[in-house]
């Protein structure tokens, strides 16, 4: 069956336990074919639950979802053939070697490593020197590459990557995103979840998620562009006092800590001199102010508060 989207969700809801704690709350979005889509939100936002529903590991209570036109509840057999899933936790056989793991998953999907070697070649070359080493004995980055190889070995049409860069060093993270870009060029739809806001710009489109609800779906660029106010970064010698003082200042619309700066939005036009004078009166020194562009994180915070 041909469908318009690679992935489509319509009002998917999932609750856990007797208390009916809502993990996924009427989530609807779609992923275009061949897109690199990011699901971005903090821990416990419901990202993994959505992935498990789409990979047919979990049944949603309400709503419908399709992967490549196959409905997740009834046509799960078809989805399992065309989807590749890399869970957040390393879950290959630690007592089998790299080559054995890869071969095993190839045979399970009724294919061979040779058949799709060219798809995984770039990644596999990096772990090939260790192919007789047991998977459990690999380093974190190697494990992740092996897991990606195993998820790709049957040339899936949709690739699900659940927090692939969590706990990975910055260099490997960068490398990993490079790999994803290459895979995308092979025509594989990729949906990736991450708690890191800075990875948002690497995706074609992103969905911001919190408390099981989708806050916004758009390209990272548009999201930033549509940020309604001009933001200013303010710095001083005491962060806590700075925030407290800023909140008392009548002109301030919103302010929050952002790294070593406080991000501030104003109700009216920004005037530096009166604010600085006010802050000095409050007992702050080393005051620094500058206009900044909103980031995805700012968008996220804004969406959370509204």
């Amino acid at each position, binding site marked *: 069956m041909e469908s318009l989207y690679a992935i489509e969700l319509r009002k998917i809801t999932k609750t856990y336990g007797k208390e009916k704690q809502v993990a996924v709350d009427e989530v609807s979005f779609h992923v275009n074919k061949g897109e690199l889509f990011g699901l971005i939100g903090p821990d416990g936002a419901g990202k993994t639950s959505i992935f498990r529903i789409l990979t047919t*590991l979990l049944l949603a209570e309400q709503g419908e979802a399709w992967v490549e036109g196959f409905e997740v509840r009834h046509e799960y057999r078809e989805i399992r053939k065309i989807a590749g899933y890399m869970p957040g936790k390393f879950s290959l056989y630690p007592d089998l070697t790299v080559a054995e793991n890869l071969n095993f998953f190839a045979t399970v999907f009724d294919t061979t490593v040779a058949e799709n070697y060219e798809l995984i070649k770039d990644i596999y070359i990096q772990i090939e020197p260790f192919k007789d080493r047991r998977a459990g004995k690999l380093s974190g980055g190697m494990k992740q590459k092996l897991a990606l190889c195993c998820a790709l070995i049957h040339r899936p049409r949709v690739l699900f990557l659940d927090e692939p860069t969590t706990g990975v060093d910055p260099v490997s993270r960068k490398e990993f995103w490079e790999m994803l870009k290459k895979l995308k060029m092979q025509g594989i739809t990729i949906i990736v979840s991450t708690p890191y806001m800075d990875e948002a710009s690497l995706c074609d489109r992103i969905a911001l998620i919190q408390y099981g609800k989708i806050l916004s779906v758009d390209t990272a660029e548009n999201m930033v562009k549509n940020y309604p106010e001009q933001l200013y970064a303010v710095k001083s010698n005491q962060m806590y006092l700075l925030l407290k003082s800023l909140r008392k200042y009548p002109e301030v619309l919103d302010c929050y800590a952002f790294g070593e700066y406080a991000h501030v939005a104003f109700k009216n036009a920004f005037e530096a001199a009166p604010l600085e004078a006010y802050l000095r009166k409050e007992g702050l020194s080393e005051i620094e102010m500058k206009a900044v562009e909103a980031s995805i994180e700012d968008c996220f915070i804004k969406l959370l508060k509204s």
Partner: protein
Amino acid sequence: MRTIRFLLQKEFRQIFRNRAILLLIGVMPVMQLLILPLAANYEVKNINLSVVDHDHSGYAQKLVAKVTASGYFKLRGYGASFKEELKKIESDEADLILEIPEGFERNLIREDQQQLFIAVNAINGVKANLGGAYLTSIIKNFNEEIRIELLPPGRFNPGPVIEIIASNWYNPLMEYRFYMVPGILAILVTMIGGFLSALNIVKEKEFGTIEQINVTPIKKHHFILGKLIPFWVLGNIVFSLGLLVAWLIYGIIPIGSLLVLYGFLAVYLLAILGFGLLISTFCDTQQQAMFIMFFFMMVFILMGGLFTSIDSMPDWAKLVSRFNPVSYLIEVMRMVILKGSGWRDIWPQFGIITLFAVVLNAYAVINYKKTN
């Protein structure tokens, strides 16, 4: 078929790579069969006896000599005060006290009767029971001798006496090993099959590998068969190893046919592997599976008729042991190995164990959900 072949290849690879499991399979049965049958001996020896003698007569000494000469008792004390000797029971030095009253010999001759007192430490039930019984029978024997000695020949009027001569069928010398070894082997096979299958599947859950399997097109029954077959094979290997040990060390050669034995074992292993599988579907960690399995194993072993006969259990316990697959294997092993029973004799047990295999596996498969 192809999928199963690859699954089996993977399972065997993992098993042979796990040195602990290999040791478990190879060494455990041999060690246990070498040690346990020697220790699990019902014959009670070395019962510590304390004698309180208020009489100090010839008969009293004769009695004590007879008791100690039996070989079952060790004389730990010989005193004149019951209180003193009771302290020995309290400090666990003595298991039994035999009190000989004052005027034992005199009254026995004059009044034709006398009483003895036996105090038994009943903390160890088996020892107390058997010790008391041995002592009673020795005293009875002593009594007979005295009667013959005291009554002049001819005047001894033999009353009607029933003499019992017992002959032990299937195990003429009442060798404990002959029925302990098959029983212990039955338990070994059960433990290996049950624990390994339960822990293996839970391990896949714990490592998250089951998730990775679940997103593949592998079918439920393929996965389960891929798990059951290796452990079924291992169970058979352990059993064969056990039979070999029984033959080489204890000289036990099954009187019945090996085919019957292995035929029953084949189905029995399916039942016990199904049980392991069922437990694994309820557990998320190996620790949970281990404890639940232990609980059932204790019940299976203690109520399986290995140490205590099921026939002498109360009705409720008999009912419970009917649901104990181990009891059927122990029974069949003893029947075939010692008695030479054939298919026709064991078919009720065979039928029940088949039912166990079907029900346990079906329940496990239903309970093992691929999607939550």
